[in-house]
């Protein structure tokens, strides 16, 4: 990791689209070595918040600071060297090879005129290897399954060597074993000093991996704290309007939520 002490902080973010306010004053901080889970019901503003953090959506007010600098004052290349994003879904009309997609992560590092060098190619190959996608390198991205594409996009983010990793539903469309692999990888990145923010729907997976959680609801932070603090029956009931039963993970002792059919909205 290039930025050992990476950190991203959002303050009082108000953002939305014409005629629709999505975020109504959200603040959060993710520090180096920490995996922060961004949770909440559909439409709570998780994706918009990630877009604001990545500086591709300009908020109406509020600031985002990465490594002590306002993200909106950074050039695109400077920003891409600090923040890497794994999108939820990418529509790929034409299919470059997976290797080329991973190599795109080097765009912000490679000189503007001479293009990607052998070192960039080596880093891209390493990133594919790390994401378990090296065997896909020569295949067109458009021919890959959703889960395989996901791993290629994770490789692309790794190739950016950014201190901050933002993931929108990193494990959507992956089978449980692949999802575990991906999150193990993210945890390794945290240990190496990355600050990781994941928007995630799978509460139990989030409980297994996240150090801290931020629950969004209706564009506001409805609860936040360490996983042990906020992953409770009361919080989940309040935010998702359904009553789960909490049990302990048999190996790890971490709380896991079991949902009850027919319980949605019956508080």
């Amino acid at each position, binding site marked *: 990791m290039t930025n050992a002490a990476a950190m991203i902080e959002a303050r009082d973010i108000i953002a939305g689209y014409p005629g629709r306010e999505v975020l109504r004053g959200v603040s959060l901080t993710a520090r180096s070595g920490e995996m922060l889970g961004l949770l909440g019901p559909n439409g709570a503003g998780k994706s918009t918040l990630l*877009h604001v953090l990545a500086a591709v959506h300009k908020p109406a007010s509020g600031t985002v600071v990465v490594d002590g600098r306002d993200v909106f004052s950074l050039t695109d290349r400077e920003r891409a060297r600090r923040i890497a994003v794994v999108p939820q879904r990418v529509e790929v009309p034409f299919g*470059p090879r997976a290797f080329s997609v991973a190599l795109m992560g080097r765009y912000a590092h490679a000189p503007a005129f001479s293009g990607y060098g052998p070192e960039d190619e080596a880093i891209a190959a390493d990133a*594919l290897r790390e994401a378990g996608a090296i065997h896909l390198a020569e295949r067109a991205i458009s021919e890959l399954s959703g889960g395989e594409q996901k791993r290629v996009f994770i490789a692309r983010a790794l190739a950016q060597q950014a201190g901050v990793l933002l993931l929108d539903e990193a494990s959507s469309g992956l089978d449980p074993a692949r999802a575990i692999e991906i999150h193990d990888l993210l945890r390794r990145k945290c240990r190496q000093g990355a600050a990781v923010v994941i928007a995630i729907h799978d509460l139990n997976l989030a409980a297994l991996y996240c150090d801290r959680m931020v629950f969004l609801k209706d564009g506001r932070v409805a609860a936040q704290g360490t996983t042990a603090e906020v992953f409770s029956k009361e919080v989940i009931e309040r935010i998702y309007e359904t009553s789960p039963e909490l049990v302990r993970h048999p190996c790890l002792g971490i709380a896991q939520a079991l949902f009850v059919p027919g319980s949605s909205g019956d508080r």
Partner: protein
Amino acid sequence: MTQASLPAHGNTGRPALFAVLAGLAALGLASVFLACLFGPARVPALTAVRLLAGFFGVDASGVDPTLATIVRDIRLPRAALSWLVGAALGLSGGVYQGILRNPLADPFTLGVSTGAAFGASLAIFLGFTSIPFLSALGLDPVPLAALAGAMLSLTAVIALARAGGGTRRETLVLAGIVTATFLSALISLLKSLGEESVAGIVYWLMGGFAGRGFGHLAVFLPYFLAGLAIIVRYSRELDILALGETQARMLGVKAARVRLYLLIGASLLAAASVAVAGVIGFVGLIVPHLVRLALGAEHRPLLAASALLGGILLVWSDVIARTVLPHGAELPAGVVTALLGGPFFCLLLRARAMGRT
């Protein structure tokens, strides 16, 4: 597993691709030479070789001066122009499809061709078909008017798209359609007003390479080179832009600006092509498709191969256009490209569909 045992994934280690591109380039040059042999007057191959070698200092004296004029001053510039126009259209189509992320886009999607047609029609309508000063330089004013029309319409499209909320793809395409529709109406107006010039306008609109020579090459080349330079400079960004503007920005590409540059580059090529050869369809749409099927979707090899293949296709389309009718009568080259290309593409799609099931 050691580093050495892993397969190489560099872009450098693709000798097959290099061989394909080198082969296409050689085929293109050979096509331009062979095209000099076809036409109403029979030119022996050996004579043509001597004449063309004359450009490189080989002694070509003793050749019939009429044949020398036919080969050097008529057929060679025409073949070279058709090659370059084909290359420009293939390249331009590949870029348009990439930036608009739409496989149905072609060099004329944004109304550049209609702008050029309007410029040419206006010049013909006003009788500016020959201006002594320009003629002395070997320049025909109509292509210059077409070029000016294309540039103006491109400027109008971009301005309109910006006024309509930035250069988003949908806004751009919409602005292109609006501009093209408006200019088409103006062309119809010119046709209905100028009874004498109708024939000239219709003939110009059909396009082709009849009577094109060094003067047209001189009009075409600067724009071709400028467009090519822009596209080569930003071809790496094009791959990233094809994943979408948000993705591109996340990776550090100044997406809106780079897309505008690429758009201008591709439009310069399209405008210059229409200015000298009229509207030639099919090449810019289908050639990038064919190449994508064969080589994959990465833009640098895709654009290089599209340019080379487009050139070859148009050289031979023009050869057919000028030899298929008796008594030296000619078809517009655009008619040939569409007549040959359409059915060929249907066959290709069918073969692919059958290969899949």
